[in-house]
């Protein structure tokens, strides 16, 4: 059952933009792009938040680190995205590890605020540091690429297939992240993270160095956020502090993860697939026309979130899907 759903989902994801492309609309591909970016961020956040169970509201800092690192490498040294991305992800993970280790002495809410603290400190640094462009940030010039493969590897799509290219790039990165997270979940790391979440002291009693594994968890999150940041940078063609350090880069993935099911591998995916299109639809139908600029779309969005939180706090994955689909099948038989 799950396997069938997976195959259908994968096919849908791959085929989805093609009819739209033929038609000429690119808006929905961009929506899809955003879905996969947020799903990827949600998968990343799920490691520190869902599996290791730590409150983390600061990973947008590493999103920015990734974006800036890759942008700097490209602008100053001509390093293309395919190489810049892994380097940026590694840099993000490293900085995260160094910053987080001393913070692991703090527990629960105190740790949460410390993650916010790093974000608050990063903002003026980003806005005033001349080397990375201060408030103006960095611009990423588009170099003409000779063929599709070259364009894909440098994340620089242009022309009529631009949105399509970014869509597939996001899909590919998302799929890669999903695979990696599935592996982490089944590995020693996955077990240790969840042990720390369930009972940190008991985990220490069976030999788990909780500080070390919290750092590892957060660094994995940082690497994913950094990679997503690179993707975003080359899509937006510019990196500036107000944009890449925005709180939404963590609150949206967190919400997607909670809606879908926190701590479950597919939770963030389900959540992103539901929330992002809703917010986009709200924005285009209720946010334009006579009610434009009145935030009606966001009111409805907020209402939906509140209702889901109130009536299905464990996330939508925890609904009895198997029972529903099982019943349907036996009804046919």
């Amino acid at each position: 059952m799950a396997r069938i759903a997976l195959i259908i989902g994968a096919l849908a994801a791959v085929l989805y933009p093609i009819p739209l492309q033929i038609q000429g609309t690119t808006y929905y591909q961009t929506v899809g792009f955003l879905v996969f970016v947020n799903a990827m961020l949600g998968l990343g956040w799920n490691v520190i938040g869902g599996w290791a169970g730590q409150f983390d509201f600061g990973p947008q800092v590493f999103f920015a680190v990734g974006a800036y690192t890759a942008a700097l490498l490209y602008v100053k040294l001509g390093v293309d995205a395919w190489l810049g991305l892994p380097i940026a992800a590694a840099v993000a993970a490293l900085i995260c590890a160094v910053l987080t280790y001393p913070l692991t002495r703090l527990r629960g809410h105190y740790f949460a605020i410390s993650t916010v603290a790093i974000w608050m400190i990063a903002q003026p640094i980003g806005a005033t540091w001349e080397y990375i462009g201060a408030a103006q940030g960095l611009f990423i010039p588009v170099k003409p690429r000779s063929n599709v493969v070259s364009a894909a590897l440098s994340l620089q799509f242009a022309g009529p297939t631009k949105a399509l290219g970014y869509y597939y790039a996001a899909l590919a990165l998302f799929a890669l992240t999903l695979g990696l997270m599935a592996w982490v979940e089944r590995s020693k790391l996955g077990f240790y993270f969840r042990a720390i979440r369930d009972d940190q002291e008991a985990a220490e009693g069976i030999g788990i160095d909780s500080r070390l594994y919290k750092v590892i968890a957060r660094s994995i999150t940082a690497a994913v956020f950094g990679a997503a940041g690179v993707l975003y940078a080359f899509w937006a063609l510019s990196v500036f502090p107000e944009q890449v350090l925005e709180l939404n880069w963590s609150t949206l993935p967190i919400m997607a993860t909670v809606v879908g099911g926190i701590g479950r591998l597919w939770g963030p995916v389900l959540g992103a697939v539901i929330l992002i299109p809703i917010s986009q639809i709200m924005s285009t139908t209720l946010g334009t026309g006579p009610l434009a600029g009145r935030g009606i779309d966001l009111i409805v969005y907020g209402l939906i979130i509140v209702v889901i939180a109130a009536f299905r706090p464990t996330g939508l994955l925890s609904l009895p899907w198997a029972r529903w689909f099982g019943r349907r099948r036996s009804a046919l038989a």
Partner: protein
Amino acid sequence: MTELAQAVVNGLQMGFLYALVAVGLTIIWGLMEMINFAHGEFLMLGMFGAWWLHAGYRLDPLLSIVPIALVMYAFGVLVYRQLMRRVQGGDPFTQIFATIGLLFLLQNAVVAGFTSDYRFVNDTFLQKLGGARLTVSGVTFAVPLLLAAGLALVLFLALYLLIERTEFGLALQATSEDRDAARLVGIRPQRMFAMAWGLGAALVAIAGAILVNFFSVYPQVGLQFTVLAYAIVALGGFGSILGTLLAALLVGVIQSVTVVYLPPAFKDAFVFASYLLIGLLRPQGLFGRF
């Protein structure tokens, strides 16, 4: 040197206002351990309420504290009963999620009703005293801010007495320490939580009504105060009302001293850098019971 002293004095006065902003969160988060991302939105509603009453009915913000407090108390209770009660038992992240949704709702409801334009109140009682100054040994106190700080301190002390000296306050503390034990002595936890939310919302809205004399009013004004309030409550040590006051004063001073030497963009960064430093040296906050 007097520039520094002046900054400290200004910071202390702002600190009293911050204390009033943060103390509502001390009750909700520190005592009840419920996360509220929408705390700043209650403040924003208080500010808008004061502005609206002033623009429409010429009611001075200081006087509108009473109706605003009552309305927001009821609103806080409503939010608890309809939303927070349902997410209380579950994952803390669901509480976060729920209150983020509330944030979107409240902020954009105000945008829908009033647009995102910046608004100001003019000619309020405190603002009319704008020129008056008090100078004590080389340090100047602007009378409006001084009076506002004084009012905030009085309200803060009133709350302190409420929590520490009245039966209601003790019941609240009891419920936060051990819900079941509280039940055994006849306290109804649900009622306590609802009242705590009402009280928390009312307090921060009152702070908003006072702040309207000094800050411009717009729907997005809340988030900066939410973030600051969390830092203050954590610095002070959860659930410690006295700790909240001291932490708020500290934050006010750090902000104003930082601005003397660095661009204003850094003032909050320094507050949080101090938080990290203090947090690493004293993980349970200044007065926390860990």
